[in-house]
């Protein structure tokens, strides 16, 4: 081993604490990228594999009642690989131990063999036997939430008839990865489940023998979805077909996709910010660290080493540090990514997980990290090599201090000479001070980015559930009812107010753009379920015309006043041109509203409502639940209270993990940066400080010079950090926007405060560590050589 290589090892040994801190900063940056991309790729791959192995359908359709004989003709459509006609009905459940009514969707299973589309993964027990009307399999989450297992009994209100069902097994279905009940924004597995029953049994209960009302089909590779949908619509039209649709509009898929897209957005925005910031930081730190070696660079040059040899020597040092960082980052990122994948996998109840690591992510993260270190080192080495060795070997010339106003304070006795010394030092090297402050402020900004999402979610929960949807429950009817049903609902025990709504599935078309959506009809002014704009002001629905959310307007490329073609997907299936009365900015993505009476005119089927939003007297809740469980007209009940809790729980649980990871990584970065800044400051000034000690100043007085500087830099860094963090957070929010919703951009003051507190704590800890070094400063040694 050459003497120079030995120097690399010794320097690493000497600087281990700093080297480790730098390596951890880089590791944090690398880990975020690896974990986020890894989790995304794994989940995406898992979903793909799940869909394929369990034959998730490509096209879905509903009808009122179509004969089984139609299946053969559907299977003959060009591009169709497999068809499964089913009976799918909504039922109301009375689950033991659950006071509130639960809603379920009953799905039929073929009596012979496995379904050719949407196969089930059997988790426990067995599937119901053909023809047994009292046997059901339920989706695993519903069973878990309600402590149901094979053998448990539940009671169901099916088509007005009460039955007792025995659970034979628990299953997973690719079709219901995301089990969303009608009118819910998040899965509420306690109050919403999926029942799988024998086709013969379900058919006889719902009078669907020899017929089906729901259809799923798989396409051949390369088949044209649009033409299959068109052909299918033609075949189903006589049987009340409501328009076939692809995966894009399948509820579970759309939500899952939305979440994965958001995960990807997260992976594309936050980790690169972390990686680039950490890369910049290690670049800055290593460059300052190497700049301290100026005299040694001069000496090596004087001894006959070439600039290249010297450069390579220092590169070895930083590359070792960077490699440690990258390797730790890879390991931590992979581990965290796997953990996150498992967590999400559990949340989505995938039957299996595929871990997929993209080599590209590792390469990119590693390359960025090492390049940043190398560039930082070369910058500093170049600076020293460019000097003639005679100059480089001298300690940097004592700077020419200017007499600036601090001296006045000194003379006035406001600050001690030592404080003036610290201030003057900062003033003398403003760039160095600015860089230290920038490093610290970047640490603050990462914390802001890591923490702020909670603020936005809090705001969103408040906006959605306390400002917009203020009802206590939403009752949906199995079939649309005349508005007079409101009187009946008001008669239910505990119901204090009821607001009708109607949801009409339509195809909106403008030019060649189209989108399948539901128009929600509401009374002109509502009190429970309100339409709000971005300022949270209620929107009064105009007498006629559509009110579109911005997102829908963008998808259809329409403005206020434009005519949109509305194709009704139920009933008459006619097309009407309706003007856009208003485009509103809203936090919810795909929303189309219309005045209820105008909607009735549009459908031409007379006044109908799909459900009621109700306000409930909590004291009479039990009586209401009991009544609803016995009321045949009620298709489902969504309890907002449960939803509220669930929503917060779901989002916060998901976010908490992510956020915790990001916060921990930002804390590491903050500490690494501040600690290194302090250590470098100490090295830069060791001689001067030792000199002061020799002159008779106490340890405390001497370390105060350093601490005052550190404190000033840290304080100056805060506002800059807030500003940078605000900017980064904005970029993150912009990346989060999806069809489903726009995340409000809210950063509370608390977030800034917490970020600052964390960084200041890191600074204090660093200061204490560095102060210990000042205390143990070996005067002789420092004055003799340089550490």
């Amino acid at each position, binding site marked *: 081993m*050459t*003497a*120079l290589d*030995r*120097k690399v090892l*010794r*320097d690493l040994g*000497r600087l281990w604490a700093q080297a480790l801190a730098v390596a951890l900063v880089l590791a944090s940056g690398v880990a975020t990228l690896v974990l986020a991309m890894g989790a995304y790729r794994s989940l995406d791959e898992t979903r793909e594999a799940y869909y394929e192995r369990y034959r998730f359908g490509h096209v879905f359709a509903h009808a009122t009642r179509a004969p089984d004989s139609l299946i053969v003709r559907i299977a003959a459509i060009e591009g169709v690989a497999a068809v499964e006609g089913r009976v799918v009905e909504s039922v109301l459940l009375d689950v033991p131990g659950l006071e509130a009514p639960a809603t379920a969707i009953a799905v039929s299973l073929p009596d012979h063999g496995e379904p050719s589309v949407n196969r089930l993964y059997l988790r426990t027990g067995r599937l119901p036997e053909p023809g047994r009307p009292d046997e059901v399999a339920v989706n695993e989450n519903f069973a878990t939430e309600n402590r149901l297992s094979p053998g448990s009994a539940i009671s169901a209100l099916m088509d007005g008839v009460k039955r007792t069902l025995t659970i034979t097994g628990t299953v997973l279905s690719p079709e219901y990865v995301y089990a969303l009940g009608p009118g819910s924004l998040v899965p509420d597995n306690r109050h919403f489940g999926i029942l799988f029953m024998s086709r013969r049994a379900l058919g006889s209960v719902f009078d669907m023998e020899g017929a089906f009302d729901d259809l799923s089909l798989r396409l051949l590779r390369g088949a044209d979805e649009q033409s299959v949908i068109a052909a299918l619509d033609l075949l189903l039209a006589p049987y009340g077909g409501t328009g076939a649709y692809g995966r894009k509009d399948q509820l579970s898929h759309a939500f899952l996709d939305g979440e994965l897209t958001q995960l990807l957005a997260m992976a594309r925005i936050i980790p690169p910010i972390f990686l680039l910031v950490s890369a910049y930081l290690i670049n800055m730190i290593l460059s300052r660290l190497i700049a301290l070696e100026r*005299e*040694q660079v001069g*000496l*090596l*040059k*004087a*001894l*006959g*080493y*070439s*600039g290249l040899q010297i450069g390579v020597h220092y590169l070895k040092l930083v590359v070792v540090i960077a490699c440690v960082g990258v390797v730790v980052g890879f390991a931590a990122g992979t581990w965290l990514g796997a953990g996150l994948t498992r967590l999400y996998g559990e949340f989505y109840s995938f039957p299996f997980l595929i871990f997929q690591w993209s080599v590209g992510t590792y390469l990119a993260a590693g390359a960025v990290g090492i390049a940043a270190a190398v560039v930082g080192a070369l910058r500093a080495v170049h600076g020293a090599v460019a000097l*003639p*060795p*005679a*100059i480089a*070997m001298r300690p940097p*010339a004592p700077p*020419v201090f200017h007499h600036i106003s601090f001296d006045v304070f000194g003379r006035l006795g406001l600050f001690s000479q030592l404080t003036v010394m610290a201030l003057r030092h900062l003033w003398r090297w403003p760039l160095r001070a600015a860089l230290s402050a920038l490093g610290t402020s970047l640490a603050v900004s990462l914390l802001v980015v890591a923490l702020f999402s909670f603020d936005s979610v809090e705001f969103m929960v408040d906006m959605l559930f306390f400002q917009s949807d203020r009802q206590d429950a939403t009752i949906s009817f199995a079939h649309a009812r005349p508005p007079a049903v409101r009187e009946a609902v008001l008669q239910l025990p505990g119901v204090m107010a009821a607001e009708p709504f109607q949801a009409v599935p339509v195809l909106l078309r403008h030019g060649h753009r189209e989108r399948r959506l539901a128009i929600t009809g509401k009374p002109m002014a509502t009190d429970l379920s309100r339409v709000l704009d971005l300022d949270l002001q209620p929107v009064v629905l105009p007498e006629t015309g559509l009110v579109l959310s911005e997102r829908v307007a963008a998808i259809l490329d329409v403005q206020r006043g434009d005519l949109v073609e509305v194709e009704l997907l139920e009933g008459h299936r006619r097309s009407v041109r309706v003007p856009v009365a208003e485009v509103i900015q809203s936090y919810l993505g795909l929303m189309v509203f219309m005045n209820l009476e105008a909607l009735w005119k549009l459908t031409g089927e007379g006044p109908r409502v799909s459900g009621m939003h109700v306000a409930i007297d909590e004291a009479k809740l039990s009586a209401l639940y009991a009544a609803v469980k016995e009321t045949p007209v009620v298709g489902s009940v969504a309890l907002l209270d449960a939803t509220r809790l669930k929503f917060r729980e779901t989002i916060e649980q998901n976010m908490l993990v992510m956020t915790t990871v990001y916060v921990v990584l930002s804390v590491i970065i903050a500490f690494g940066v501040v600690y290194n800044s302090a250590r470098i400051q100490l090295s830069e000034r060791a001689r001067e400080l030792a000199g002061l000690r020799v002159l008779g100043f106490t340890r405390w007085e001497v370390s105060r010079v350093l601490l005052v500087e550190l404190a000033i830099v840290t304080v100056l860094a805060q506002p800059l950090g807030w500003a940078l963090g605000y900017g980064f957070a904005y970029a993150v929010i912009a990346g989060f926007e999806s069809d489903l919703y726009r995340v409000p951009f809210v950063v509370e003051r608390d977030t800034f405060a917490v970020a600052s507190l964390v960084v200041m704590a890191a600074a204090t800890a660093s200061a204490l560590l560095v102060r210990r070094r000042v205390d143990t400063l*070996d005067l002789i*040694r420092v004055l*003799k*050589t*340089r*550490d």
Partner: protein
Amino acid sequence: MDGAAADGFDPASGPHQPVFVIEGVSKLYRTGEVEVRALNGVDAVLYEGELTVLLGPSGSGKSTLLNILGGLDKPSEGTVRFRGRELSAFSERQLTLYRRDHVGFVFQFYNLIPSLTALENVALVTEIARRPMKPEEALERVGLAPRMDHFPAQLSGGEQQRVAIARAIAKRPEVLLCDEPTGALDSQTGIRVLEALSAINAELATATAIITHNAAIQAIAHRVFTFADGRISEMRENESRVSPSEISW
């Protein structure tokens, strides 16, 4: 003075080539508005095998001249030729090779690498030199063999200085430039170091220049240059040299 330079070296000890020819060398340092003329028109010739002692008050420019001869700095005016090649015209690469292959330098401030032991500090040079002696041998010559595994911080100032000298002689240089090599040494150790330097000077006909504030040392030189205000104010040949062991301070 020119005349003295031309025939200044004792021809009796054999045919000697000039190693350095210094002509009109000046050096200006500028820091902010302050301008310091460290050297102000120096002319001199240094010969192969010759041992020169440079004397002069602090700040008179001795170190500056030595730095220029060692390729550590460039003159602001004038030329320095090393064996007929103009040093000030050397490229960065040529300068590196020049320092590596020809020059042994003892710096005024010992300038050791703190993270390397005495032995490793010497090895730093022998590893890249053409025909070096073993680092142990170089340390032996300055009497530091027993301390070779110590780090600079564990050595006294004088010991550090001797490591620096061992480092300079270890490559068997053609040119040995020593900036106050005995400044921190007691007379006994100082003499030992001077013996090591003059042995190299004699064995390899190394052109040797030694800066010192110690007038006693001039007795071992072939010639003595005295500096004042950036010039060589006096250049004197020693009629009778004495060996280092015969002097004391």
